[in-house]
Every structure is written in structure tokens, then in C-alpha cells.
């Protein structure tokens, strides 16, 4: 069934000028290698920019495909958030990045915008230790709570052994009557 709302794909240059008109010089870098449009933006305006990309009628990136992080150990700023967006109507894809310094490893949460960001941000918190400001439930998702350190950081020791904890805490065993 054909959609009634069809819009022509927005050119990357139009997207860049729309961002510049709305926010000023927030785009630190941009490139379109192999057809993948990428913008690197300021971390401080992260939530505003993503809100704009989602809500602007001409852009309408209504689907957050992926959210992850890269550790460029030795560089400054050290971490880089990577978000992949898709606009269902136009079929346009966009990659948005922001660099995060090690000493202040925080960034605004996108969970209020896309519900798919909830678990993805928990995974990034679990693996890289990035704190997401405004996340509704920022807990580890793959590792257990007593796990020490952030295993996908490049300085995580290879041979590190982790605490071994009982299946249930004594309080939980009490509750469940085991």
C-alpha cells in the first residue's frame, strides 16, 4: 500500500544548511564517504540537534537504527558517540557523531526521543562507562551489577578477573523463600 505522504529525499547540503540555520556552527565536521552522510556535532547541543532531526518535517528521521560508541584511546577527546538514523518516508539515512572527553564522560540521553535508545544507551554505559543524562533507567544490561570496570574500553586489562557473586542476594533468597 503506497503511503500518502511521500517526500523527496533531502540533499545532504540542504540538511547541513538547515542545521546551520537552526543552530549556528554546531556541525564540527561532515563527510559523505561512499554515500554515507555523516555529521560530527557538538556534544553540548546533542539532544537539541537530534530532536530537530527527528521533528523537522523536511527531515523526519523517525527511526533510530543504532547507537554505539567508539574508544579512540590516546586521542583527545577520547570517546565518540555514533548514532544511525533512518527516515522512513524518504528512505534517507544519516550518521550523527559527537566526541566525549574522558574526564567528563557524559552526554544527553536520547531515550526521551526514541524508545529504542533506552537499551542501546544502557549497553554503551555497560561497556564504555558513558553516563547518559536524563536516561530513565541507567543500569548495566549485559554484565551484572558487581562487574568492575568497563570491558570495551581499550585500557581494560585483558586478564582481569571479576567478582563471583551468588545467583541471588541473601535478601532475594529470603523473599523467594529459598
Amino acid at each position: 500500500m503506497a503511503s500518502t505522504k511521500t517526500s523527496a529525499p533531502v540533499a545532504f547540503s540542504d540538511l547541513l544548511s538547515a542545521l546551520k540555520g537552526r543552530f549556528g556552527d554546531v556541525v564540527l565536521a561532515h563527510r559523505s564517504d561512499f554515500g554515507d552522510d555523516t555529521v560530527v556535532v557538538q556534544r553540548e547541543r546533542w539532544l537539541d540537534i537530534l530532536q530537530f532531526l527527528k521533528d523537522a518535517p523536511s527531515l523526519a528521521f523517525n527511526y533510530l537504527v543504532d547507537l554505539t560508541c567508539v574508544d579512540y584511546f590516546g586521542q583527545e577527546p577520547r570517546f565518540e558517540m555514533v548514532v544511525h538514523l533512518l527516515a522512513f518516508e524518504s528512505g534517507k539515512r544519516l550518521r550523527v557523531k559527537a566526541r566525549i572527553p574522558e574526564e567528563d564522560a557524559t552526554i544527553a540521553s536520547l531515550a526521551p526521543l526514541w524508545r529504542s535508545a533506552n537499551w542501546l544507551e544502557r549497553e554503551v554505559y555497560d561497556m564504555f562507562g558513558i553516563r547518559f543524562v536524563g536516561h530513565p533507567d541507567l543500569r548495566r544490561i549485559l554484565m551484572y551489577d558487581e562487574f568492575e570496570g568497563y570491558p570495551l574500553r581499550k585500557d581494560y586489562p585483558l586478564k582481569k578477573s571479576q567478582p563471583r557473586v551468588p545467583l541471588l542476594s541473601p535478601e532475594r533468597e529470603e523473599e523467594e523463600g529459598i
Partner: protein
Amino acid sequence: MHYTLRNKLPSTALFTTVDAVLNWGRLSSLWYLLFGTACCAIELMQTGGPRADLDRFGAVFRSSPRQSDLLIVAGTVTYKMASRIKRLYEQMADPKYVISMGSCSNCGGLFDLGYSVLRGIDKVIPVDVYVPGCPPRPEALTQGLLVLQEKIRKQRYLAREA
């Protein structure tokens, strides 16, 4: 002890030691828990299948730890799974035995440097027999079971320690 006497004697009495009878019974009915954590479980299934046929040694799988005598730890053990394996082991009734199958559960194996991997199941539960291999062939696991049977045959329950 057994086959030569089958259906040939009238009602009579047999003389043996209690230890020998208990051990013979236990080693001849090693029911193992249907449990695997990684690719070693595939070889465990093959070992239980018709070609390797672990049944001929009295070893059949049970789906409940309450009915199992033997825990075959087949595969990589993560920290999170380790506490669950310990729970399963504690749920088994005595006497109980453990075979560590494959390099991963022996020492971490291929995933030694993994951040989530426990480096050897013997850090959590006691192990009777270690079977090397990645994964061990069914013949190797069968050999491990036979070694365990020989170990059980030498156990002494009622005799006073010398």
C-alpha cells in the same frame, strides 16, 4: 560377577562387599544432566546419540538436576552462568560427580582473555575428570566417562580409613 550366574542358579546367596555393590550400582547408572553452555554441548549430544551411544554404559540424560548423578560442564562458562551452574550442582543429590568437558570449562580455553569468561569451572565447583579438546570428540568424552567409572569403582564408603 554377574553374567555367568544369570538364570543358572537356584535361589542362593552371593557374597561381596557392600562397597563393591554400591560402587557397581553407582558407576553403572551415571545419569547426567541435560545441560550445555556452548559448542561442546553439540559433541555431548553426539556422544549421547546412536553412534557413540553413551547409553551402553548406563549413562542417560535427565532433564532435572534432582535426578542427575553427573554434571557434564560442556562449554564456555561466563561469570553470569557460573552462579547458575553452581546452583544446578547444589540441587543435585549426593553422590554427585562432575566432568569438565573441553578447554573452556577446564581453563577458559579459547576465551581466556574474554572479559566475561570464567577461567575454569573448578573455580566454582569441584571437578572429578577433565576432558581436554576443543571440543573433545565423542570418543574422548566416552573415555572421560570410563575414567570416572574407574574412579567410582575405587571409592570406599563403609571401610574405615587406614
